[in-house]
């Protein structure tokens, strides 16, 4: 298919989105990520039954925490698609990149620059 999607996305592969923990999402932001999105299988299609449903809950938890600490919960997103939907994967990648670009960089980066100055 040779689809194009933004090159600034770093893919972290996990066996199932059920493996993604709140802590993984928070650590990404702590280390300076501008946004994180979790891409899971369609709801109801999880090979392990509830992996993607658990991921959805954890994404919500991470959002609440990021809102409380001032990083902004809207920087985390969850998408669901089937493994055969390459074009949709690229579409979501473009969509989230545009959204995060509008939100600007992770506020932690600006704050640490100010602190270093």
């Amino acid at each position, binding site marked *: 298919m040779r689809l194009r999607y933004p090159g600034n996305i770093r893919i972290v592969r996990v066996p199932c989105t059920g493996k993604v*923990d*709140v*802590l993984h999402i*928070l*650590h990404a*932001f*702590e280390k300076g990520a501008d946004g994180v999105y979790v891409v899971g299988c369609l709801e109801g299609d999880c090979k392990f039954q509830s992996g993607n449903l658990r991921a959805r809950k954890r994404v919500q938890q991470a959002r*609440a*925490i*990021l809102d*409380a*600490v*001032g*990083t902004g919960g809207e920087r985390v997103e969850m998408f669901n698609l089937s493994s055969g939907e390459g074009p949709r994967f690229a579409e979501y990648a473009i969509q989230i990149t545009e959204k995060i670009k509008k939100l600007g960089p992770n*506020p*932690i980066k600006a*704050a*640490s620059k*100010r*602190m270093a100055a």
Partner: protein
Amino acid sequence: MIVADKKPIEEIIDEVKDFQRILIAGCNECVTVCEAGGKKEVGILASALRMYFMNQGKKAQIDEVTLERQCDHEYLEEIRTVIDQYDAVVSLACGVGVQFMAEKYTKTPVLPGVNTSFMGVTEERGVWSERCQGCGQCLLASTGGICPISRCAKRLLNGPCGGSAQGKCEISKELPCAWQLIVDRLKELGKMEEYEKIIPIKDWSTERAGGPRKLVREDVRQ
């Protein structure tokens, strides 16, 4: 186990916002099982606080430790050599652990990171319910293993009351009537004669009503 619930992150931020060096101390026992104060929750809270302080442009050191228990001297001793490096400790143990740490390390503020709720069971993941109130005089032998003190809203010893309808308590349709459960269980055990016996007035002095409690056992004391 002792069941606790996570405190809202905003409340914890309010507790620690004026400190610089903070230790987040988890507990490997009950609060780990009820997913409120174990190693993972310590990691999440520490990460959240680090981000909060960075966003505020404040320098802060947030460290993590998870002790085997916070209700025993031997495990609390593990942080004796490092505690002076911190301005405050947020303990994610139950209220017992928070207090024991505060008693031991008097110069460092120890702040609670969870709301300790009750002694109970895990009905399923994410659902916990109360089973014991530590009344000091266990009645379970005569009530079919179901506790009327912790599970009956009125703590009736000779129930049910008139508020029991279709097996549910009048305070909530979700809540089973403890005395209905007791009768059902005694029937199943073929011990309905136990139900006919009147349980005498309970001595509540062994319960919280008698003031803070202490247990001393000379047989095991050193």
